[in-house]
């Protein structure tokens, strides 16, 4: 029995899941109807949990890309800026068209935003893979420059758009489920299938764990890095479009501000090490949900806004401590002891 408990304790997703459950429990205590999901007049699902999975979608989407980048031993700090650029491009195209409600116009706007972001991602990949610049520095360049680029596109204005098809992205519903949630679910599923059903995941992990050994084994590390940074930027663009659509405005300064930090946190909470190597998209999903639930908890429990950051930091610290190698080793030791002791008792019994 203790053995099974022990195994659960050492599972890499144990603490993030436990934290998620604990946060939900706190919310249920504070607001008894917290978990209730209702269907409103338009047939849309409604409730706090739905809010969490909708509002958490942008962070989740970016965290998926971030997971793969981190698995290669890299990091992408530019995702927030890419969000802003994507929003700015889409909004300026929609505003510039005589017919903002035309789905074709919105489609072009979205594709343009994604296309530009793809270039941004390739730029990051170039700096990291070809020039060999450390990822944190390489992506810092676009992180700072990116908001400036967004500013140029918006010409320093906040671009407010009135476009039904565009609004649909961030706040629409499909079969009663928020569109943002559906996009998030599709993306994480596609990413999981793409990396785990092909050999992509294995090769990414291999490069992240031991780049030189991978090179000697014939792994094309350079191509992989390009792919991963480009993928991450495209996902950042999608997240940026959802955020912009939700706010119905592109704000070069504030769209996706600090979202890179939330995404990195989600990845780390999910048990993927910043040292690269083995990654878990399931972990990232849980991590993103923890972060969004945390934000919600701040409101439901009524923590004063000034203490929000401290509260968030406390939760993250707790999970990281519980997941640390030292703690895991201590648990493993405790487990081993209990297993090792067993034969002794059996021997006593049999005598």
């Amino acid at each position: 029995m203790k053995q099974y408990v022990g195994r659960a304790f050492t599972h890499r997703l144990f603490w993030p899941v436990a934290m998620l459950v604990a946060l939900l429990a706190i919310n249920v205590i504070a607001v008894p109807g917290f978990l209730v999901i209702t269907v409103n007049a338009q047939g849309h699902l409604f409730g706090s949990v739905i809010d969490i999975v909708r509002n958490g979608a942008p962070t989740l989407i970016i965290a998926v890309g971030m997971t793969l980048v981190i698995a290669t031993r890299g990091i992408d700090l530019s995702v927030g800026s890419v969000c802003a650029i994507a929003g700015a491009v889409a909004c300026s195209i929609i505003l510039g068209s005589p017919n903002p409600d035309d789905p074709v116009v919105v489609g072009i706007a979205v594709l343009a935003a994604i296309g530009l972001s793809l270039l941004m991602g390739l730029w990051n990949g170039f700096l990291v893979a070809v020039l060999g610049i450390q990822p944190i520095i390489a992506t810092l360049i676009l992180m700072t420059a990116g908001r400036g680029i967004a500013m140029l596109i918006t010409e320093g204005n906040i671009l407010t758009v009135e476009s039904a098809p565009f609004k649909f992205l961030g706040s629409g519903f499909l079969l009663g489920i928020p569109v943002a949630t559906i996009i998030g679910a599709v993306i994480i599923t596609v990413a999981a299938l793409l990396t785990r059903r092909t050999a992509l995941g294995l090769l990414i992990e291999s490069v992240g764990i031991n780049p030189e050994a991978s090179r000697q084994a014939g792994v094309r590390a350079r191509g992989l890095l390009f792919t991963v940074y480009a993928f991450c930027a495209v996902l950042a663009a999608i997240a940026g479009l959802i955020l912009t659509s939700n706010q119905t405005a592109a704000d070069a300064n504030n769209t996706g501000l600090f979202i890179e930090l939330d995404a990195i946190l989600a990845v780390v909470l999910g048990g993927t090490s910043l040292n690269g190597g083995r990654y878990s998209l399931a972990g990232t999903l849980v991590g993103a949900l923890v972060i969004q639930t945390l934000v919600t908890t701040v409101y439901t429990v009524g923590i004063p806004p000034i203490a929000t950051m401290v509260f968030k930091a406390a939760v993250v610290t707790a999970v990281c401590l519980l997941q640390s190698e030292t703690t895991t080793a201590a648990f493993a030791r405790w487990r081993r002891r209990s297993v090792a002791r067993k034969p002794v008792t059996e021997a006593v019994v049999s005598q």
Partner: protein
Amino acid sequence: MPDSVKAPVPTQAPVVEMTDISISFPGVKALDGVDFRMFPGEVHSLMGENGAGKSTLIKALTGVYSVDSGLIRLGGEHVTFSEPAQAQAAGISTVYQEVNLLGNLTVAENVLLGREPRRFGGIDWRAMRRRAAEILEGLSLDVDPNSLLNSHSLAVQQLVAIARAIDIKAKVLILDEPTSSLDLEEVAELFRVIRSLKESGVAILFVSHFLDQVYEISDRLTVLRNGQLVGEYLTPELLRIDLVQAMIGKELATLDDLENKVHSGERDVAPTDGVAPFLVASGITRKGAIAPVDLVIGAGEVVGLAGLLGSGRTEVARLIGGVDRTDGGQLEVQGATIKLRTPRQAIKHRIAYSSENRRAEGIVDELSVRDNVILALQADRGWFRPIPRKRQDELAASYIEALNIKTPSADTPVRNLSGGNQQKVLLARWLAIAPRLLILDEPTRGIDVGAKAEIQKLVYSLAENGMSVLFISAELEEVLRLSNRIVVLRDRQKVADLLNDGLDVDDLLALIAEGVTEPEPVTGAAS
């Protein structure tokens, strides 16, 4: 129950006494009730096959692993170290099997890491360099203390790790396979140092798969098999055949048989006649690494590369394997000129290079045994054509069986395997791509006697079937046994290219040390 303890107790009390030590890892009982002791002023060899538990016993003693049960006494006092630093402070100085130094620091910094001489609250850099130079001189190691550790070969790095350990004032010195990448010269130097430490009363624990070295240096032997104690013996009283039998737990005949097979097969000495060579290298060179070298490797031919530490063997191998780029010269594969800029291109030409440095350049330690075995094959196929899971399992299972890799399962991360078994996984990776030319740089490093014979046999039979092999080993017997032809390098130049026709170790040694041209000191080591 283990055999009776045969060695008589010396007059002194043991300095280390480990009683009934057990350690389990998921899926393996690494140590099962093992007793072990060491006396001051003795060299004690710990023997056993790959995965027998030698390194685990050492790590139990030094506090890397905490024991599940059992007692450890140091100088009569009961101790429990929860981390290696405590063991070091208590006078146990250790060189672990996997050299664990900081490649981007200098040699001097590595030797004195954590014990830097200080002055006015800062590090006294001049004193540090002087001190490091003295220590290195004590090992007759002629390297610049200010050079980066990374810039040196694995052998030098191993010597630096040893230098670091023997500098610490210790009661107990533990050397886990310290000689695995050293040549005869360096081994002789190391043994000189060990003997002088022994005279000053240090207890030395020595692990090696080279029986010659074990018999030369050690006074006492403890044999482990599958995590259990087989027995403790005095070296002069235990015949080699009995030692081998104690280690592998099999009738000796099996091993004899095996050795015979490797020896017996009549080698066709010059298979190149009439057949187009697989690879022709003309004047390939790389600045600072190797002078222009010509090399021809026939299809199905085994070419041995012999030479001392720093003679350029690995450098040649890396050029042909596409790991380093050439600065000049030309490579031809089956008559066609090729350019190699990456290992990937070499692999496309079915040339595989198995690095001597399995930890830094070989295994991907967090990945499973299966993933490590299929890695090169998968990389070659491209990411969008995954090897079906069933095929992966078959491949892994077949190599685990063929190379006798000791692992709880194919899913076990490679880092959890013993050193020798990690080496076998690396070998499996290269065999899996079915290369036309396999470059083996110290492939039997850290591999036990039984498995070594198995691997030699395998190389031999692969060559029979048409695979070419470029073979590098510090163990000359091995080079002689397997090679059709032997190329001798000295001071980064080729000095001889001979058919292996009645050559013996002494012939080879003479060539390696003196060369055929003017005799000059080979390295600073010859003092």
